[in-house]
């Protein structure tokens, strides 16, 4: 330490504001430096001698201050008083024991919260089963063809099999849907639909389906399922008039089977009255029930139109069905078939006119129109 630094710290040394190392260094410097020693000792002597004598405050000053404070506290604004009270409460709240109590309460509360909803705490559990769950592993059983089985609906009609989903609505079974262009053993597949359906509803087989009397006897109190089953039984047994009446009732009442009942009702009508009456019914079903049932009805209507020779209307329906993914391929094939048929008819007509012009060719020309007649019959 040198004298310059000593001058800077001499007051700190005098009032003991230096750390121990600097104090020791300053004292060592004072031992060797007469100037600094003189300054240091002179300041220390001045401080000792010149200590300012303190005067005792007047008696009563402290009391006056406390009285003034008491009066001031009473005159404090409400906000400051509330703030002071809040501060007091906060002071108590910040104490460790209060904090620990709060933590303890939090732990107990959270434990109760998590423990209160344990399933085992409930002694009685009421379970109500509504509906029948959908069976994804549904198996369609093909029954042997019955000799007295009625002619099944044409392409598409039997494809509508109702199995109930979770919401109870009929579900179209695409797996059993036949290809229109490739006629399959329709009676067998038609019989498969109720098998799957009844299997889902409790395992009753086709042979166990109630007869007419039983169906009629239970009709009054029958639910939609049993009514539909009875209608289907009548349809399969060839009692088309009865089936039509039952299906029409179901369709008019609405419900989950209304769409399928309307379609089957139209098919039964076709069996009873033929295509002239059924075509319009199919159109109504097509208009009323958009979706798969409506598409099926449109297909059936087109089939009727073909049978009736109304190829233009049939083609119109097929064109509409071309927009339906499930009918797209079949509809295009049917349109191509219709076009070919029209072309054949035109060709036959030209040949017939040519034969009429040539008497020699008349016998040969007589068989041509017959070959060009539509193969399908309305019945």
């Amino acid at each position, binding site marked *: 330490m040198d004298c310059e630094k000593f001058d800077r710290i*001499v*007051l*700190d040394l005098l*009032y003991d*504001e230096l750390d121990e190392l600097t104090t020791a260094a300053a004292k060592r410097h004072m031992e060797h430096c007469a100037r600094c020693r003189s300054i240091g000792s*002179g*300041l220390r*002597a*001045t*401080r*000792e*001698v*010149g*200590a*300012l*004598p*303190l*005067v*005792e*405050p*007047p008696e009563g*000053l*402290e009391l*006056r*201050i*406390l009285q*003034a*404070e*008491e009066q*001031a*506290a009473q005159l404090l604004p409400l906000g*400051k008083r509330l*703030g*002071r*009270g809040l*501060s*007091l409460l906060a*002071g108590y709240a910040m104490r460790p024991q209060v904090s620990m109590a709060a933590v303890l309460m939090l732990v107990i509360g959270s434990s109760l919260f998590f423990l209160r909803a344990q399933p085992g705490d409930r002694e009685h559990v009421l379970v109500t089963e509504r509906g029948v769950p959908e069976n994804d592993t549904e198996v369609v059983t093909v029954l042997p063809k019955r000799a007295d089985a009625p002619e099944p609906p044409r392409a598409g009609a039997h494809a509508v099999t109702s199995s109930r989903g979770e919401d109870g609505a009929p579900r179209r079974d695409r797996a059993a849907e036949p290809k229109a262009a490739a006629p399959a053993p329709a009676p067998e597949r038609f019989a498969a639909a109720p098998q799957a359906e009844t299997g889902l509803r409790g395992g009753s087989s086709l042979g166990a389906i109630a007869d007419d009397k039983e169906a009629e006897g239970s009709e009054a109190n029958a639910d939609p399922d049993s009514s539909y089953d009875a209608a289907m039984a009548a349809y399969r047994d060839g009692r088309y008039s009865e089936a039509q009446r039952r299906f029409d009732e179901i369709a008019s009442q609405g419900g989950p089977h209304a769409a399928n009942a309307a379609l089957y009702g139209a098919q039964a009508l076709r069996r009873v009255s033929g295509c002239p009456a059924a075509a319009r019914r199919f159109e109504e079903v097509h208009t009323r029930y958009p979706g798969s049932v409506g598409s099926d009805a449109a297909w059936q209507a087109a089939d009727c139109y073909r049978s009736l020779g109304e190829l233009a209307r049939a083609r119109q329906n097929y064109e509409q069905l071309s927009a339906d993914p499930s009918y797209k391929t079949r509809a295009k094939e049917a349109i191509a078939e219709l076009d070919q048929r029209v072309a054949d008819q035109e060709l036959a007509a030209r040949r017939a006119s040519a034969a009429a012009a040539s008497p020699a060719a008349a016998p040969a020309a007589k068989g041509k129109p017959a070959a060009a007649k539509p193969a399908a019959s309305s019945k």
Partner: protein
Amino acid sequence: MAAVQGDATDEMLMVRYQRGERKAFVELVRRHNRSIYNFVLRQLRVPSVAEDVTQDVFMRLVQNAAEFKHEARFLTWLYTIARNLCIDQLRKLSHRRHASLDQPQHGAGDQPDAQLLGDTISDPDPHVSAELNALSSEVRSSIVKAVDSLPDDQREVFLLREVANLPFRDIAEITGVGENTVKSRMRYALDRLKEALSDFEEYARALR
């Protein structure tokens, strides 16, 4: 409780007073009313005014208690209040005739118990010998005169250091100047005091 408050720091007492503990305020007054009164008295030099200002200092403390920050130093805050009140009072007094050391303290010069400030300061200590007491009275009077003759800025620093016993850092904060400036003012004040007390070396040696 009293023992606990006796051990508590000023800051702790102030926090307790903020919470509404009036005993904490009583303790603070007992601790600091003497030093505050002396600081104000040496600044204003009029005992009656100093008494009122001392009371005002503590009333300011009461009114602004909510503004005290826990991390602040209580003495720094208290002496900042005292200094500001002294400055205000000096401005008022500058328009009036200053009370002198020869003026009776309570403004009643005809009262038999009227006492001069110089006499009050130089009250002899009964524990010291008569000879030293006589010398002491003269020394004390000289000290008071020397302190009174200091420039305001030097006297202010001297009083804060000697009466309030505040470190130079806090004095710098109160006065709003740098710490080196504070030390410089203190050094000048001590040099002046040393010069005024140069005739009392014998007394100084006697005290050692």
